[in-house]
């Protein structure tokens, strides 16, 4: 019998070693798997490469991983948290900055067996020309730049080659899930969650509600359990308020 439900997050996530690449769902605090992220902290995992759209506006979620010095590299489109940049410019964490749609498609492609694809997003910009600093040294000099993207013309327009992302592990959050790992998300908390789940070689899903197998109608399942290895209960419902304010104007 297939039963992917695990009652003990620490026991389940113990297979994630320090140094792992971890894809994480969520957009800001919306749909972010805080139970699983907090468990990684409690397991004292370090040197992590996290693939996630945002690095929070506070010290919850990915912000907690940062505050506790657990990140080696972040692949992201909108890190936001000022303290993240302090760590980046100080040479303590690397930033692979990529357009948001490219991040979503790289996760989808990795999970779908597509090794690489061309996209117009970012073509001809410093995120594709090999001049954006991936990381700094502690003396403030640039240690390495993000690699230059291969450019290619399609129909008279410039495109860049982007690679699919396959993560060692994925952490995602859903509204409802069953013991086969079938997931249903709620409203805009869906965001990167199905894509991160697809990209993980081994995917953990925390769910707000564990429902009986069969309660989710086949047509209503957003992500089938084939993409999910272990299901856990979210320790609490979503935070009451989104915590990130608009920064740009």
């Amino acid at each position: 019998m297939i039963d992917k439900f695990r009652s003990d997050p620490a026991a389940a996530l113990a297979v994630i070693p320090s140094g792992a690449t971890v894809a994480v769902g969520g957009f800001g605090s919306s749909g972010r798997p805080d139970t699983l992220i907090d468990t990684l902290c409690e397991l004292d995992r370090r040197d992590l490469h996290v693939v996630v759209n945002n690095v929070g506006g506070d010290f919850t979620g990915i912000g907690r991983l940062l505050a506790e010095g657990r990140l080696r590299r972040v692949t992201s489109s909108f890190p936001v948290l000022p303290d993240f940049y302090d760590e980046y410019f100080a040479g303590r964490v690397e930033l692979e900055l990529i357009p948001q749609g490219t991040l979503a498609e790289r996760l989808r492609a990795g999970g779908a067996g597509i090794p690489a694809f061309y996209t117009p997003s970012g073509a001809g910009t410093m995120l594709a020309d090999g001049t954006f600093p991936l990381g700094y040294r502690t003396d403030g000099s640039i240690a390495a730049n993000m690699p230059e993207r291969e450019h290619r013309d399609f129909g008279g327009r410039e495109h860049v080659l982007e690679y699919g992302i396959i993560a060692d592990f994925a952490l995602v959050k859903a509204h409802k899930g069953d013991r086969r790992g079938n997931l249903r998300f709620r409203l805009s908390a869906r965001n990167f969650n199905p894509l991160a789940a697809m990209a993980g070689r081994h995917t953990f899903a925390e769910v707000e509600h564990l429902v009986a197998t069969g309660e989710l109608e086949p047509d209503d399942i957003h992500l089938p359990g084939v993409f999910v290895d272990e299901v856990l209960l979210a320790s609490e419902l979503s935070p009451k308020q989104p915590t990130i304010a608009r920064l740009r104007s």
Partner: protein
Amino acid sequence: MTQTATAVPVSGRSREGIAQRLAADLRDGFVVNLGVGIPLLIPKFIPADVEVILHAENGVLGMGPLAASGQEDPDLTDAGKQPITLITGAAIVDSATSFAIVRGGHLDVTVLGALQVSGSGDLANWYVPGKNPAVGGAMDLVAGAREVWVTMEHVDRTGSPKIVPECAFPLTGRAVVTRIYTDLAVFRFDDGQLRLTECAPGVTPEAVRERTAAPYIEDL
């Protein structure tokens, strides 16, 4: 570059006035993505008989107004993480599908702020070197939307033109801008040629010329 310190002072549209002017150009049935800043002032000026579907990068098609205090749902935000509402007939998709909408040419218009726009339609709006770099969906939006409309002040805080021969700031995209709405004027790009098509009420073509560094054709 024109020295605007010596130019005669000019008063054009307010930020709300820029939003109102742009809103008058939205057509019934348009699917539109609005960036932060002036673009977010646009919805309240959309005429009642014009139905526009608002898209948010985090997977919302059919955004309504911000949620009222006490009615916020943490599972329902816009791309700026503000709690929102949905209109009747709204749809939710994942982030890959959201950007398939963007890159696939299914947005009629994206409206964005800008640091600079070049005379060939290059846009710089994501990064001021020395500050904290973050890009979000800006590069996807300008690469994929059928039209890229920029709203901005005509000059920067030092009085320097923001419509320039070449952008000094890192680019968001090359030759992507199709219209510019500022406090002083409206510009359009036709076949890569920048054209001044309208001056704001009380603003002369000379005042616009003095504050615009890129060459353009007057098509008033």
